C-alpha cells in the first residue's frame, strides 16, 4: 500500500469513539432515582472462559455426544450469501429437521454457528460475540470457499480470508455456493465428528485464547467490547 497523506484517513491515533450509549452515564429512573451505569463493565461478565472437562465416565460422555449429535440447533444468523441455500435445507425438499436440526433465534440456545459465506470485518465482530455467547459444546461450520481462503473476494479490503484464524472451525463445506445436498453431507459429517468426540472447538478456543484474540484484534480495529462476551 502506498503511503498517502493523512488528511483523508480517519483518526486512528486517538481511540475510535465509543457510541454514546456505551460510555459511562447516568440514568434517571421514572421514580427519580439516579443510577450510574458503565455499560462496558455492568453489562458484561469479565470472568475469563475456562476449559470444560469431559464427563468422568466414557460411556456417559458417549451418550451425551450422541445426544448432541442428534440435536444440533443452528443459530439463525445469515452472515453471507450462503444463507440463501440454508432455507431449502430447512424446507420440505431437504428437511433437515429429520436429523434433529432446527433454528434457534438466540445464541444462548444454539450449538452450531454456521458462517454462511464471506465474512466482512463488521460481521466478524458480531459473529465472535454470537459465538462466545453460545453455551459450551459448540461447533462452527464454515460454508463456502470464501471462509476457507477468501474465495472470490480474496483481494477485497473488507472480507477476511482465513476464517479459522478467528474462531475454531470444526468443518468447512466447499463450494460457491454450496448446494443443499453438500450442506446436508457436511452436517452429517459433523455429526460423525461429534459422536467420536473430536469436535471440541470450544475448548480449543479457550486453550488458544490469546492467539485467537490477537488475531481478532488485529483485524477489528474498534474493539469496544470486553475480551470475552458471556
Amino acid at each position, binding site marked *: 500500500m502506498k503511503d498517502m497523506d493523512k488528511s483523508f484517513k480517519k483518526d486512528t491515533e486517538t481511540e475510535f469513539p465509543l457510541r454514546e450509549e456505551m460510555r459511562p452515564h447516568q440514568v*434517571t429512573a421514572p421514580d427519580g432515582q439516579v443510577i450510574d451505569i458503565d455499560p462496558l463493565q455492568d453489562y458484561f461478565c469479565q470472568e475469563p472462559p475456562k476449559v470444560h472437562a469431559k464427563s468422568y465416565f466414557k460411556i456417559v460422555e458417549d451418550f451425551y455426544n450422541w445426544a448432541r449429535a442428534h440435536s444440533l440447533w443452528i443459530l439463525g444468523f445469515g452472515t453471507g450469501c450462503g444463507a440463501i441455500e440454508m*432455507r431449502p435445507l430447512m*424446507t420440505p425438499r431437504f428437511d433437515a429437521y429429520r436429523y434433529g436440526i432446527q433454528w434457534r433465534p438466540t445464541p444462548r440456545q444454539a450449538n452450531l454457528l454456521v458462517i454462511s459465506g464471506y465474512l466482512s470485518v463488521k460481521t466478524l465482530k458480531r459473529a465472535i460475540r454470537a459465538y462466545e455467547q453460545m453455551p459450551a459444546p459448540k461447533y462452527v461450520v464454515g460454508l463456502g470457499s470464501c471462509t476457507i481462503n477468501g474465495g472470490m473476494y480474496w483481494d477485497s479490503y473488507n472480507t477476511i480470508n482465513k476464517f479459522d484464524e478467528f474462531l475454531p472451525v470444526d468443518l468447512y463445506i466447499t463450494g460457491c455456493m454450496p448446494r443443499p445436498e453438500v450442506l446436508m453431507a457436511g452436517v452429517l459429517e459433523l455429526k460423525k465428528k461429534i459422536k467420536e468426540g473430536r469436535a471440541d472447538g470450544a475448548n480449543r478456543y479457550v486453550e488458544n485464547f490469546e492467539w485467537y484474540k490477537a488475531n481478532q484484534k488485529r483485524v477489528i480495529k474498534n474493539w469496544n467490547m470486553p475480551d470475552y462476551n458471556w
Partner: protein
Amino acid sequence: MFEPTPQVDLSSGKYLKLWQGPQHPGITGNMALELTTMGDEIVDCKTHVGYLHRGFEKLMERRTFIQNFPIVCRIAVPEPTFNEYLYAAVVEELTGIESPERAEWIRTLNLELMRLASYLMWLGGIGAAFGQGTVYQWTVTHRDYILDLFEEMTGARVYHMYIVPGGVRGRLPEGFEERCNDVLNRVEKLLFDVEKVLFNNFVFKKRTKGLGVIAPEMVDQYGITGPNQRAAGFVRDLRRDAPYLVYDQLEFDVITATESDAYARSWVRYQEMHQGIRMLRQCLERTPREGPFQARMPNVLHWEVPAGETYVKAECTRGEYGYYMVTDGSEYVRRVHVRGPSYTHAIALMEKLAVGTNIADTAGLMVSLHTYPPEIER
C-alpha cells in the same frame, strides 16, 4: 425530504434502545435496525448496513471485463440474474455488440423465472414475518423447483453465470418447455392456495392494512421504485416505459394499487407473480428454436472496451436496478456503480416509516418493502 430525527434523551429512562439484527430472525438478510422505543412504539429508527460489504465496485475496477462477469452475479444474492443481464447490457452498449434475437428471448425467460423465484422467496418471507410459517414452507419449496429449472438451463442453482456479454452461454435443453410449463402450473396452483391462506386471512389483513403507508408525494422524494411505487398508485414500470430485451413484444399488465400500505404492496407483488407466469408462458411459446445465441465476440482476453459512459436499468422485483459504467479505453473498467432499489427502501424510507409503528411490526414492514441488504452495500 430529509427530516431530522427527534432528539431522544436516553438517560430519562423512558426509552429503550433495541437492536433488531444483525442476528435476528425478523430481519431480511444481514443488517441491523437500531430502534429507540417507548413502550411498544418506535420513536426512532436507524438502519445499519455494511455487514455484507465486499467492495464489489473496487474489485471490479481491478479485474478485466471478462473476469468481472463471474463476480457480478454475487452482488444481489436472491436475484443474481439481473446483475448478469445488466452487466452484459452495459458492456454491449459500450462496445456496440448486439446480442442475437434468440439470446434476447432466452434472457427474458431467464429474468422472468428469476423474478418468479425471488417473489416466491419474498412471499414466504412476508408469511413468516407475520407468523405464517406454512406459507414459507410451501413457497420456498416451489422456488426450489424453479432452481431446478435453472440448474437444467445453466448448470447452477443460484449463481448461474449464464448471461454473458454478447448473448447467453447455451441453448435451452431438450424438453425444457414441458418441464417449465409443469413447474409454472404448480406455482400457479400454489399461488391460489396462498391467496386463500394468506391474503384472505383476517389476521393477516388486520396486521398489514394501514401498516407503513407511503404517501404519493413521498415517492419521488425518497426515490421509491418498483412495486412499492406502484402500490402508491403510480403506473410506472420500466418494462413498459423503457422496454428492454423483448418486453415490447410481450403482453402483460402493470399492476397498481392505491392504498400503499403493506397489504397493498403484498397484493401488487402477488398479482405480478401471476403476470410473470403469463409472460413466461409467452416466452416459452415464442422463443426461437433456431439461430445463434451468441454474437461474435472479440478476444476477451485482451478486450479493450472503448471509452464512454452509460447507464442501463431494468425492472427487478424491487424496483429500478441499474448499472452505471465509465470506461476509459483500457482493459479495466474505470468505475461501476450499481444502483440497487433497496438502497433507499431500506435506509431512508425504512427509517421514516418505522417511526410510530409497533415493535412487533418491524419485521413485517421491512419485508413488505422487499429489501435485500447485499445490493445496498455491494
